[in-house]
């Protein structure tokens, strides 16, 4: 069973479908830019499920922050 799992993971790596390091923190100066980054990430990881938290905005420099988990 463990061997099957290992083979599956190796196969995922070989085909580029393995989930990358998660979570990914997107940051941008504008909401449009943040949404654009999110769409690009989504397109890049079509085979994965992406989950998103609520967008936060820094009170210091106004940066928008979005946490995305790639599963």
């Amino acid at each position, binding site marked *: 069973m463990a061997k099957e799992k290992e083979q599956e993971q190796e196969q995922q790596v070989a085909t580029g479908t393995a989930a990358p390091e998660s*979570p990914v923190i997107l940051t941008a100066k504008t*909401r*449009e830019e*943040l*949404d654009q980054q*999110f769409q690009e990430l*989504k397109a890049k990881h079509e085979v994965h*499920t*992406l*989950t*998103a*938290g*609520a*967008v*936060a*905005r*820094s*009170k*210091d420099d106004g*940066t928008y*922050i*979005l*946490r*995305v*988990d790639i*599963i």
Partner: protein
Amino acid sequence: MATLKGQNIRVLLQDGNKFKVVGKSTNCTVTLTGNTEDASTKDDVALASKPEITSKSWSVQVESLDVTDTAAVLNAIKNLTPFTLIWDEVAAADNQTAQAATYSRKGQAYLNDVTFSWNDRENSTKQLQFTGNGALEKVSTAPSMQIVTVDGAYTKGQFVRLFVGNDNSAAPSKVLAACKSLSLHVSMTLEDATTKDTAGDWQVQEPTALSWDISSNALVKSGDVITSTVQGQDFASIEEVYEASAPVKIKIANVSGANNRTAGATILSGSVVVTQLTLNAPNRQNATFDTQFTGYGTYTVAA
């Protein structure tokens, strides 16, 4: 000696081989319960009861202004992710370095109740409740900590909105218009699963049922105004959903743009039924309506 302040007692969650504080926490409560049975008998001449502690249980509540991890929390409660947590005193220098105080304890727990609130022009909040599963142990050495970055970023409630569909087939595209407050509550029912096989007094728990609901409050506005400016759902259309007695699709999403109605990344989606609709019409005040949407089936956490 000065009284210890609340900011110096924090809940720490295990992440890998380190512990992290719950970031942007505003309050935490630890409740230790002795479950009792009255052991008074006819042999006792007096009228007083004699509570005997038959089992012990514990729970921890944490409130925080960090809602960037909403999706992760919603998955954790749904997937019955077990947590190892500690409550401990932290150093005043950074409020993050654990001290292994004499009253610090460590245990396994289920995250069994979460509430997110996204209220207009307020910082969004989350409330987490963990219920202990088994014994607590003393923390004799300070746990290794992963320091959480203090980023000063907050989510204003108007940038997260509820979208409600007209039926259970099409994707929901209309916001709940003129919404003032929105909250999402998810609860995992736990049942006491302690048996004669269980050593010690501590209760063990078994998750048995997941339920979720959404509560909102919105102004009652003319349907024409809603249609022409927001393209949203109003009291009249929500009442139609209620009268249809059938599930409709919803989603909670990040929003931006004009009227804060352009959907960005989805936080949660699913189907709901309207289980309560309350019209409030106080004299010389804005008329509002409260809606309770109860989850129908499970929810999906996918952006």
